[in-house]
């Protein structure tokens, strides 16, 4: 049963200076839904998902996350951020903290978990992403794929309701992409709401409930995977799919 709306985006407009980066975005995401966002470079995909946890401010419209309306209020923002985790393209692990400390920092200081509990959970998550043996290394001692799996484990450590992924595999060498995608596929069965910006169409076909195509700051088309790939409505999407699938 996927009934509750967990993210409601209404009439969101955002400008960088004079540049209209998001143009009247409307989007509702249901609890547990897995959404893949794709589109050409510069179309506003990152900007959109970064608005959801207020890493970017927007000038018009409203976003409600799990019943909390996004405002400038610092308390509200922190409240939302404690429920929404994010995985970045270039990992953004904390280089001066060991892997395990990267994972336990937020649980201990933001969620008031005890150190033992946080450690236990961190180790079990590292086990799940297949790198328990690297727990006491520093991020720079790991490969890109391993670092990104640490980043995913770190994002999961706070038991988020929503996970945002911004091109999690595009900074990785080809042979490491699948190890990260495997973890994400595994995650998609958990019931966590996921918003993924990615160009991995295989992944999208496999797990997405809905795929969103963006261009020039607008949502051009959205559909469930089958229709999205086989019966694209707009010429723009057809062109995009041609380009991306013939690569």
């Amino acid at each position, binding site marked *: 049963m996927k009934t509750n709306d967990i993210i409601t985006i209404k009439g969101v407009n955002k400008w960088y200076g004079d540049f209209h980066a998001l143009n009247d975005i409307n989007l509702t995401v249901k609890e547990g839904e897995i959404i893949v966002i794709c589109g050409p470079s510069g179309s506003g995909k990152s900007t959109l998902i970064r608005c959801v*946890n207020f*890493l970017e401010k927007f000038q018009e419209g409203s976003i409600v996350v799990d019943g909390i309306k996004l405002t400038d209020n610092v308390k509200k923002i*922190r409240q939302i*951020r*404690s429920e*929404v*985790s*994010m995985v*970045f393209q*270039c990992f*953004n*692990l*904390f*280089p*001066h903290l060991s892997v395990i400390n990267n994972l336990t*920092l*937020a649980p201990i*200081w*933001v969620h008031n978990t005890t150190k033992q509990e946080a450690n236990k959970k961190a180790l079990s998550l590292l086990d799940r992403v297949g790198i328990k043996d690297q727990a006491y290394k*520093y*991020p*720079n*001692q790991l490969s890109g794929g391993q670092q990104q799996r640490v980043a995913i484990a*770190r994002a999961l450590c*706070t038991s988020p309701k929503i996970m945002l992924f911004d091109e999690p595999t595009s900074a990785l060498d080809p042979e490491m992409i699948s190890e990260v995608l495997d973890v994400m596929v595994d995650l998609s069965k958990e019931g966590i709401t996921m918003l993924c910006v990615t160009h991995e169409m295989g992944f999208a076909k496999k797990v997405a409930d809905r795929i969103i195509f963006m261009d020039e700051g607008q949502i051009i088309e959205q559909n469930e995977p089958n229709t999205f790939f086989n019966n694209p409505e707009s010429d723009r999407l057809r062109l995009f799919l041609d380009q991306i699938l013939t690569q």
Partner: protein
Amino acid sequence: MSIFTPKQSRPSPKTQVGILSWTTKYLFSSKIDIALSLFAFYLLYLILPPLLDWMIFSADFSAKTNAECTREAACWFYIGEKMNLFMYGMYPLEEYWRPNLLLAITLSFAFIVRLLRFQPYKNKAALALFIIYPVVAFFLLYGNDFLGIKIVETDQWGGLMLTIVVALVGIVASFPIGIFLALGRQSRMEIIRFLSIAYIEIIRGIPLITILFMASVMLPLFFTEGINFDKLLRALIGITLFQSAYIAEVIRGGLQAVPKGQYEAADVAGLSFIQKTVFIILPQALKISIPNIVGSFIALFKDTTLVLIIGIFDMLAIAELATSDINWMGRKTEGIVFVAIVLWSLLYLMSRYSKALEGRFNTQY
């Protein structure tokens, strides 16, 4: 088709060693190199022999009075006779054990910190040491009636001891102030940012001498008359005000070098501003700034010699003072050379330590 046969790994080829290959590689590898090397050798030839002759070969190490001593070269017995003055100033002889003990405590710090390295409570212990140490240092050097430690007024302090006190207090006190100023300069709150920028830019525009004069003349005006405002304390405040502006700029450079992604990752994790600053940003920013921080401290250490102009007897002032002894007229050069050697050695140690520190932070991650 040829079959792949794995090759044995071999030891790496020996690099050429020996004086000859070293000199050809580093001193005479091109025409310009040859010219520069010869010029450098010529300068050394001009400077070194007379210097060594004055300091060592013709110098007099044994003569006990000025009259017996040679006039042509150094008379080192003079330094030996004035050694206490150079080290402790007018600090009473029978109380020398106090600065000595403090020095021993300070030096053992390095070992204590190393010993605690792997203990789970190391941060708390370090913090405790950091708070207790200045108190202990103050009671030991200045004294305390209640504890039965005889009070030695600061105008009796002097020499190397005072130089180190001024430099250490300047370093330790300016560091946290510098951090706050650097953070303030990046703050989104306009007033805080404006005040930080104004402070930093004004102080950096004024020479230390002027600040020392102002601190020694103007500070007492702010306080009710009758309170005897210690001269050394005034100098320390002046130096701390000065140094914190420079440290702030150094740390700001480090803050700017921390990638934007680190700020974002900390925000996304839900950390508060203070948590983000303390756990994520400052550790990385400070690590980046270590070489510049040490550089700035070395500059401060040298600048402390300026306190002599407001009548505080640091080591350089002692070199001047000691010449007023009628038994040892005309021995100023020896004093100044001695001070130069001591200060240079300390600064060299400091910069070696900073190198070691950088290395240690680097291997960690």
